[in-house]
């Protein structure tokens, strides 16, 4: 029995909790990135602040906030200030449609039923793609508004790269959409009911790998991080950003990474479902969290191991390899579904 007031209260609680948890996850993701970077290189990473250096991100945030706010005098100041938010905010919107646990089920708190999702949105998948596209604006506008040749080059490269890889992403998620019969992420997770062999990563392995690789390009991470290639263009589109403005872009990268990991887990790894039926006693959010952490680790592992592609090689991979493969994946999925039924 649902109570509109209870629903509203739960909605507010979820809406507040979700960004807070995401930000905390981002803080620790940054810390773990640096720790893993150290371990991969034979170093130890941060050790000073907090037990095992775990409060490093908080120290960094304080430091960044205390820095002088430098805005280039001939930049477009409004756009310059707005760009980090354009990169940062869309990712949170996507988190609003990802289910953390059972929806329409028996979960309740003090007898009031609630759903483990902020909004069961019927075109959740399209929202994910759309928000990825809006994130491109953040990068390109940052590059353009800085009134700096380096930033312009970096912003345009990043923009072109992100757009190219979005196509491959779109086609690969369409395969999942066909299998689940819906664009609603809740339905997609429900379609993966069962044990881990029922999840979509087996039939859609090609699409999954393509989505993962394309998402590295979306996130501007190595090996596709030419836009921010420090060694080549100082910091690309972020050259003129310093202090907390730069911190916002940095946070945006990690928020996007968490969101994409959540999407990949939802689409291919069963979302909040446990690998085995009997393990579902452990609540859904924990499983989703574990899967997100696993994927984030893979992103970091790749980043600190592989060297980066040159720009034209990067673009040719996106257009000549990933896009045809993802289209082929879609066609094969459609044929198999229509034959098998």
């Amino acid at each position, binding site marked *: 029995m649902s109570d509109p007031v209870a629903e509203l209260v739960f909605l507010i609680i979820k809406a507040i909790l979700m960004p807070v948890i995401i930000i905390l996850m981002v803080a620790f993701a940054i810390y773990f990135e640096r720790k893993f*970077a150290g371990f991969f290189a034979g170093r130890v990473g941060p050790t000073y602040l907090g037990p095992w250096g775990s409060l490093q991100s908080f120290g960094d945030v304080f430091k960044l906030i205390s820095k002088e706010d430098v805005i280039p005098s001939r930049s477009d100041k409004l756009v310059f200030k707005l760009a980090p938010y354009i990169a940062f905010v869309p990712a949170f919107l996507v988190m609003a449609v990802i289910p953390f646990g059972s929806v329409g089920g028996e979960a309740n708190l003090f007898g009031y039923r609630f759903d483990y999702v902020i909004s069961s949105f019927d075109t959740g998948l399209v929202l994910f793609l759309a928000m990825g596209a809006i994130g491109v604006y953040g990068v390109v506008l940052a590059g353009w508004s800085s009134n700096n040749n380096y930033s312009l080059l970096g912003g345009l490269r990043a923009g072109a790269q992100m757009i190219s890889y979005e196509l491959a992403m779109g086609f690969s998620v369409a395969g999942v959409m066909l299998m689940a019969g819906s664009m609603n992420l809740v339905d997609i997770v429900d379609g993966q009911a069962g044990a881990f062999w029922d999840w979509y990563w087996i039939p859609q392995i090609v699409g999954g790998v393509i989505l993962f690789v394309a998402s590295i390009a979306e996130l501007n991470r190595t090996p596709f991080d030419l836009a921010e290639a420090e060694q080549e263009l100082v910091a690309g589109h972020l050259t003129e950003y310093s202090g907390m403005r730069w911190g916002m872009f940095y946070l945006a990268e990690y928020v996007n990474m968490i969101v994409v990991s959540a999407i990949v887990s939802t689409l291919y790894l069963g979302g909040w479902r446990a690998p085995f039926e009997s393990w579902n006693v452990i609540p859904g959010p924990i499983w989703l969290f574990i899967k997100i952490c696993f994927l984030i680790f893979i992103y970091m592992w790749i980043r600190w191991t*592989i060297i980066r592609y040159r720009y034209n090689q990067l673009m040719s991979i996106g257009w000549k390899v990933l896009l045809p493969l993802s289209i082929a994946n879609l066609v094969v999925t459609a044929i198999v579904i229509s034959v098998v039924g």
Partner: protein
Amino acid sequence: MATAHDTHDAASGPGGVPVHMIAHPTPEELRARKAAGRIRLERNAELMSLSMGPQHPSMHGVYRAELELDGEVIVSARPEIGNLHRGVEKLCEHRTYHQIIPLTDRLDYISSFAMNHGFCEAAEKLMGVEVPARGRYIRTLAHELCRLSNHILWLGTSIMDLGTQTFFTICFRDREYVLDLFEMLTGARLTHSFGRIGGVAKDLPDGFDHRCRKVIDFLPKRLAEYERIIKQNRIFIKRAKNIGIFTSDDCYAWRVTGPTLRAAGVARDLRKDEPYAAYPEVEFDVAVEYNADVYDRFLVRMREMRESCKIIRQCLDNLPDGPFLAPDAGHSLALKKNVLHDSAAMIQNFYQVFQGPQVPKGEVYRCIEVPKGEMGVYIRSEGGAKPARVRFTTPSFYHGQAVPALVEGEMVADMIAIFASVDVVLGDCDK
């Protein structure tokens, strides 16, 4: 005929097809490959001018290149050096020969002893001092350690320029072993000031032999691991193969020497061609590759590192007894341990330190193979204790000048890889 794309597996190293089975590309073929790999330059749009440097995480010091870009392609590049100019040549005219040695440390500060060695060889040629056998062997050993240190650092920074910082940290960790050896031998990690007119400053300390052997037993395995990582990495091959082709004629025209010249197929190594120190007595191979691209420069330097380990081992095995510093009262310092006990040594040191060596009138030029290329030292003396003119012909000066010839027509991302592969250090470049 094997093309370049096939030969990345058929390498000139362990586990690959032997070198003699690959047909070596001729200079015409190399030039054709270079032209084929270049994007057609369409100078339609306005050119964007980009100044790379002098503050730049990848520009190996304060080197500045004014680029004109057409999109991603470099239309013209103009190098600007001089940010690290310290007037070493002018300073040399006001110092005695012994006092110049610490100045040479700061030229190529990554391989300091090599610079000391070059200057000492030239000064000894001028003064007619013969270095005793032990001194020659210790010089060779220290020089090869410099070569190891230089190439490991170069490897780490070049791969970092291509995009990963992990490799850089790992390389530096291995370089620490070599730097510890230097600290044990010379007292300093970076600016050694170890060469002296007539030999070296100190003898090998106790325990150095054992420790050095441990390091050179350990390093080749590490180097093999690095080589495997690099050669099997598809991305690295795509970013290094057929990039930055610089044929031997280009190298002669621009005075580009060292590993870059050897990667273009010319087997020129002054350690073999104009030998000095103990090089005639040790056995080693000259690393030569034939494709003249960035990938081959990597291969050449990796092989040179292995050969350095070989040379060091031979030096340790065959180290002769005897003095390490020529007992030449007119030109070299006396041994420290004798100075406070023996009046002749005290007088010799007094004379050498306060007055300087006796040098005949004349001029001399001596070129040696330092890790980055060929360094030449020209000394003109008017008979006093201070030289009248010293000129250091350092390799990075010319490598920095050759940058336009190397990168014009290439893309910006390739410029980083190419510039890293020719190994420029600004101390060497600006003197």
